[in-house]
């Protein structure tokens, strides 16, 4: 397993946001973590990327315990997070943002990687000289992902990439998530948009009130009655395609 959480706990003061969860992601896998607002999904990702300290449990990456590894060391080892709300450098241009992504690298293939990102995200190529803050929400999300790819991640943590985007843009972002996964990058995807997440992922975890309540391969989760009712907005009577409402 590339990433392995055991009894991982995260606290905000006295509040336990993550209550001892077990979660594993194998190399090359695309795994999603779904659940409602405040379920502890983002806290989990922040703990993995080091932005929040662990209150308990263990966090193993690439066979090594990394709970005490400083935040800035993690991207250098290929553990990269694309934060919720994207966290791009709004005053810098698209090209400058991407260059920043390669900050920790010292190899000679940065330029080649840059060209590759422009291929994957042709929209960014068109706007490479534009100030990032003036991009649309979807373009900013693409930039954040492209910038993360510039660090040459082995494990990419995506936090709600669909948040706040128009339905069409959501589809496009998920297309990119698939492309990145196909390139061999391991992905842990956190999403509120359960249907889409389960459609792209191979396996999934369902999180509720800081604990994992369900896990399994994505197909069976999609068919699970409890998931359908709680996260896909379906009752027995309702039809398909209600995801776009959730994506608002």
């Amino acid at each position, binding site marked *: 397993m590339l990433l392995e959480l055991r009894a991982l706990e995260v606290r905000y003061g006295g509040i336990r946001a993550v209550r001892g969860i077990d979660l594993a992601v194998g190399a090359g896998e695309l795994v999603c973590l779904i659940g409602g607002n405040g379920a502890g999904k983002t806290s989990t990702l922040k703990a993995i*990327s080091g*932005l929040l300290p662990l209150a308990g449990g263990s966090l193993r990456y690439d066979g090594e315990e990394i709970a005490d590894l*400083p*935040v*800035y*060391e*993690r*991207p*250098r080892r290929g553990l*990269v*997070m694309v*934060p919720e709300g994207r*966290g*791009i*450098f*709004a*005053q*810098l241009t698209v090209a400058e943002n991407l*260059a*920043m*992504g390669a*900050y*920790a690298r010292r190899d000679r293939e940065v330029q080649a990687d840059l060209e590759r990102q422009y291929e994957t995200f042709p929209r960014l190529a068109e706007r490479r000289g534009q*100030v990032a*803050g*003036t991009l649309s929400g979807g373009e900013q999300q693409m930039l954040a992902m492209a*910038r993360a790819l510039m*660090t040459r991640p082995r494990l990419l943590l995506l936090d709600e990439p669909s948040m706040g985007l128009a339905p069409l843009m959501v589809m496009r972002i998920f297309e990119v998530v698939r492309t990145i996964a196909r390139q061999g990058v391991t992905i842990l995807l956190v999403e509120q948009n359960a249907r889409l997440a389960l459609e792209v992922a191979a396996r999934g975890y369902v999180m509720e009130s800081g604990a994992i309540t369900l896990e399994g391969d994505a197909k069976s989760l999609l068919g699970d009655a409890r998931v359908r009712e709680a996260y896909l907005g379906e009752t027995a009577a309702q039809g398909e395609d209600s995801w776009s409402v959730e994506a608002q």
Partner: protein
Amino acid sequence: MSGAGRIERIAGSRAGVAMVTLALILLPFVLTQVGTSWVRILNFALLYVLLALGLNIVVGFAGLLDLGYIAFYAVGAYVYALLAGPQFGLHLPFWIILPIGALVAALFGVLLGAPTLKLRGDYIAMVTLGFGEIIRIFLNNLSQPFNLTNGPQGLARLDPLRLGEFDFSTRQEIAGFDFSGPMKTYYLLVLVAIAIIVITLRLQNSRIGRAWEAVREDETAARAMGINTTRIKLLAFAMGASFGGVAGGIFSSIQGFISPESFVLHESIIVVAMVVLGGMGNIPGVVLGALLLSFAPEVLRWTVTPVQEALFGRMLIEPEVIRILLYGFALVLIMHFRPAGLLPSAVRKRELEATRA
């Protein structure tokens, strides 16, 4: 075409470099014709250029608002005063003291930086403001129990600026030209300023410079990019402080006397004003801001009284009062019409255009 770009292009051409060099060489001769005190004023303006360039690293590059910067100037000045004066009977040569002063100042920079690491924005300003005052108050009171700084009386009879046998404080004839002490000091200051400008430019375009930029724009995102923000911020404080320390050492050697009074909060604020007015993060802008704000008061000092006498027949308002008035007025005008500074950096300009639009 931006003003900064134009200036960089002109200065970049070979003819431009030759012209600037010639102007810098001739300047003190021209000023001596106007009045000898002007060379001295120019020297102080150059000290402010050094200070503004140092502060620019902290404020302009890394985006950490430092309101206690003058403390590092004080540290550099006192290091010189203690190592080249009668206080301990030490008379180390200038070229040994200067790096020591820079180092000690850098150390203080880290000392100040450490408690501000978890703070952002205005809170950094408050802590640094306090730090600047603490240093001044220490200087004022460290005459007891052990007399280190001689308290408010300050330290006097410091060694004049001397490099080997070459004395910068005396008049001398070189190759048929008459060089006064301040003129010789001027050339040294110009060389130091050029060295610091070169260092700053190289820093700006290095990995470190990019990391500072990232920290200024978004600290969390910077960390997510693998930037060790703790180290990079402390480095900004240390680099900025070391420039202040160098300036302080030279100040001591020129003055021959220092006291805590030279390092009041007002001085910190003036240096911040120079950086902001000239254009945060843009080196030509910062230099211009420092020169303007150090010359303007002097020009006013010489013009305010005669102008009033010509207009009203007598002096109505003291030059000092008018100076502060015009100073404030100029700052307001500039903040209104050129909020990114006179010669803004490209990124700052974008920032302000984005927020204004």
